[in-house]
């Protein structure tokens, strides 16, 4: 039984990329709700105040690496300190396969890496691996 995710958060400043990602995520039908944040700061502000009642907490977070205001590294450092139970899993979604990035991201708890563009195949693979699809 393919269990749908309640809420997914996409953190990326690239609007074109978000357009593509949103389309793919929606057509994959993996989540009830999809939130989008343009950088780590906005995302973190949301994550701080989200609750299971009014603002759903994301179970799955797609995270771009290079963003203005707050990039993936700073976001992940903050996210680590967030005192909440059932924190969503992070999947890095990036066009950069910069070995420096990959090396430095390894210190954080990360569920997976996806190279852009996001596609239905990549989503399916992710779901099969982590959500028992």
């Amino acid at each position, binding site marked *: 039984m393919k269990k749908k995710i309640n809420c997914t958060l996409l953190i990326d400043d*690239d609007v*074109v*990329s978000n*357009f*593509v*990602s949103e*389309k*793919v995520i929606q*057509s994959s039908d993996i989540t009830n709700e999809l939130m989008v944040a343009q950088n780590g700061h906005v995302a973190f502000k949301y994550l701080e105040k989200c609750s299971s009642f009014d603002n759903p907490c994301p179970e799955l977070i797609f995270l771009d690496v290079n963003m203005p205001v707050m990039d993936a590294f700073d976001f992940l450092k903050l996210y680590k300190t967030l005192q909440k139970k059932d924190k969503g899993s992070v999947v890095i979604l990036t*066009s*950069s*396969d*910069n*070995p420096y990035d990959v090396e430095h991201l390894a210190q954080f708890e990360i569920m997976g890496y996806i*190279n*852009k*563009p*996001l*596609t239905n195949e990549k989503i399916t693979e992710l779901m099969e691996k982590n959500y028992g699809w």
Partner: protein
Amino acid sequence: MEDVSSNIKILLVDDREDNLRSIQVVLEKDGYVFKKASSGQQALKILLHEVDFTLILMDVLMPNLNGFETASLIYERDKLKHIPIIFITANNNDNNAFKGYQAGAVDYIYKPINPDLLRAKVAVFVELYRKNHLLLVQEKKLLQINNELEERVRKRTEELNRKNIELELKNTELIRVNNDLDNFIYTASHDLKAPIANIEGLLTALFKEFNITDKEYLKIKEMTVLSINRFKSTIQDLTKISIVQKENSEDVETVMFKELLDEVKLNIKNNIEKSNAQLIIDLGISEIKFSRKNMRSILYNLISNAVKYSSTERLPIINISTRKTDKDIILSVSDNGLGMNPAYQHKLFGMFKRLHDHVEGSGIGLYIVKRIIENNGGRIEVKSELDVGTTFNLYFKTKDTNKLLI
């Protein structure tokens, strides 16, 4: 050489005019210039203004100041000390009278004067003077030449220093430009990734949206995907290059050739099997201090090329060997494949240059190999003959391993 005899000046000192005249007559033939004084006082007076005499001929017996007294006064002056004096004297008894005066050469001639003896004695002093003069002239010339040389050396040194400074400036500039270029390649390849990923995503969305089945559209779709893939692989190659540039001083370790070769063989197992290639490995040297990643890249590129460009006419044989000389560790990869036209071999190591088009390749492999080895102070050589085979020899520096094999 300047003529000295015309410049020979002789001072004649005698209180008797006839003596002066007769001495002059005797010596005149030799072309000297004479100055005459009829007393010691007059001689001293002349010597006040003129000091360039070659010789003084002086009568000893004169009223008031005699010859010896005059000589003493003459030799008190530094400027005159070098002028030799011949005393003209009546008898042998005066011989030792002018003793104790070490400065100045002194001689005697006795009355009645023997003209030949006089001329001979004068000639000796004149000759001495000439030689001295010549020496002086030569010394002066030497000094001049020396000065000229010094000046030339100074100028040359200045010029060299200037050139050196210029070179250093150029060098700094080049390093800067090179860094800029590396950064440019890195940034460009990095920044191009996002938009091309977007284009790929958008096209996927587009084709899905319209669910195109028309053959013509499918063809366009296929071509677009092909183009995007080529774009992506070029960017990947550029990234590889910029990584080679940035990483050349990292992670030096002792790497075993055999280990890496096994890895590479495993990596291209399919291609090796498909071509039936036989790999003959002869490791005279089993290890090297080098970046593992870079050595793997070198072996991968050379061996996969050897397999890729094998000839269909014969069974591919690839010889891989290592050996050592005084200065280098040499890695050799040799095949009996297609080979290359010598005319194009210089293009071999260029970026995105390919000499064959029947197989897949981006033309980046050998460029990277060359960069890696040259960044580490080594060099690569290629020998190739069309339809016979190709040999790559890589020379890794062994001396000063800490600095160069990085």
